């Protein structure tokens, strides 16, 4: 079995009577880039705050590196770099001095500061006061802080928020590089699927406080392949009939569905159905993007 870096069990946070995070079981394996996806207000930040021990769960537990965060917070946090919500900075200090403050608390040598600056390409601007930095530079400084101690786990909450396309690309490259070069496990949250899609190996989708999908990116992409839907009379019977002929249909909402296939095969299916005395009322070919899946997954919940 792969080693789990983050594991939560029935993690729940209630504000008032309302559950912002509801029975979430996150599983992040070592070396993964875990994309934590969800629309704004779905509970991403609250979950991340509980992972870091910034907020206490109403119920459930958080285990990081196999240890409970409530019991061993300090030792765990020594190996975790994080950026939560907007980046933190001391505006009256230079970029380098900002890192110095943190390095002092962690007892890190100067070398780490320079390396972190280099990784986010801030070396040139390191001596300027941070209040003069652009939003993107502040964001990069926040990531430099997270990288400072060379952590084993990096938790980044919306790290590309407010960045321009070039900045987004830079962060993306950095994130893809880290697991290979330094064996870091990364959890990165976003409300944009397109962002996660390009870096993540695993995906968790949270919606209204509930984790509605958690698997590898491959599985999510499988779902995105689309399908062919047939509206027929007596769908269940039709499915059994087709199965007996060697097809592999499945039923969804009273429709007989297939994974995408060649045109000739579609014609064969229809022919088979007609011969079997089923009426074919209609046919749909649905191609789905990941974006559609995301909307479908989160939209379904809405109608419940």
């Amino acid at each position, binding site marked *: 079995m792969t080693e789990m870096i983050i594991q939560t069990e029935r993690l729940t946070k209630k504000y008032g009577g309302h559950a912002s995070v509801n029975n979430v079981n996150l599983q992040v394996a070592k070396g993964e880039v875990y994309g934590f996806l969800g629309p704004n207000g779905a509970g991403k930040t609250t979950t991340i*705050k509980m992972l*870091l*021990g*910034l*907020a*206490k769960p109403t119920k459930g537990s958080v285990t990081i590196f196999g240890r409970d965060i409530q019991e061993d*917070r*300090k*030792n765990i*946090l*020594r190996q*975790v770099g*994080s950026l*939560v*919500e*907007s*980046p*933190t*900075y*001391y*505006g*009256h*200090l230079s970029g380098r*001095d900002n890192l*110095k*403050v*943190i390095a*002092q*608390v*962690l*007892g890190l040598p100067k070398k780490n500061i320079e390396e972190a600056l280099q990784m986010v390409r801030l070396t040139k601007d390191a001596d300027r006061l941070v209040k003069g930095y652009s939003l993107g530079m502040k964001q990069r400084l926040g990531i430099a*802080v997270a990288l400072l101690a060379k952590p084993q786990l990096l938790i980044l909450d919306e790290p590309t928020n407010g960045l321009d396309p070039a900045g987004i690309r830079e962060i993306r490259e950095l994130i893809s590089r880290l697991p290979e070069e330094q064996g870091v496990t990364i959890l990165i949250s976003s409300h944009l699927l397109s962002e996660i899609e390009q870096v993540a190996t695993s995906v968790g989708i949270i919606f209204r406080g509930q984790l509605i999908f958690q698997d590898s990116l491959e599985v999510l992409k499988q779902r995105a392949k689309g399908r062919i839907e047939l509206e027929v009379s007596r769908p269940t019977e039709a499915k059994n009939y087709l199965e007996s002929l060697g097809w592999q249909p499945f039923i969804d909402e009273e429709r007989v569905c297939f994974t995408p296939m060649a045109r000739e095969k579609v014609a064969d299916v229809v022919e088979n159905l007609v011969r079997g005395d089923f009426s074919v009322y209609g046919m749909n070919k649905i191609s789905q993007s990941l974006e559609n899946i995301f909307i479908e997954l989160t939209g379904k919940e809405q109608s419940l």
Partner: protein
Amino acid sequence: MESLVSLRYLRSEFYKIRWSMIIGILLLGPAISLWIGFGNPTEMSEGANDWLWFFSLTVHKYTMFFYPLIVGVFAAFVCRYEHLANGWKQIFCLPVSRFQIYSSKFLLVSLLTLLTQLCLLSGFLIVGTIYGLNDPLPWSILITKVIKGWLASLPLMALMLGCSLLWKNFATPLTLNVVFILPSMIMTGSGLLGSWYPWSQPFLAMMPKHEWVTSINPFMLFMGILSTFILFVVSTSTIFIKRDY
């Protein structure tokens, strides 16, 4: 058991402070008090030591207004940068406990206020010499008064630090401070009430015997200071530690 103060963390607090601002306050507060103390012509009582006489004139305004004000400003200052850029989250994600953060902030405020006291004392000695005071210098009284005044302000430091930690706004704790400084004039008139009133405690502890001051029971004052100190430290640090960010 972890240590109450993390020295590493405490040092990082020193990096963050904007010293130019702090030095300004350190010089300005005592300077105004000295100016008032020496600037107003007063009739000296018979047989009094002239150093002690002017010391009481200076300390009267200083402990009544400026010193409590400065305590509040320093308390607000050490929390300011975390409030400004939402820095609490960042330092809470570091391997230091919240109590260590609290104790470091408290230590920093108490060091700064101690510096203020020393500035007042040295300023007083310089101005006194220039002014030509020539009675024998009552060293031990002056030094004990300065230390006692500082110790008596610990409850106020705890209270103001608590307010500054919990309120994001820079101005709220400061306004509160000013509002509560004013009744201090009445409170100090009664030794019993004043012993329990954080804004009066430094005054009562630091003023030498003087015709303007009602005498107080030192034990009552000590008890008042000790219990309010414990009360404020325990309550505000508990809220600070328990809070979600």
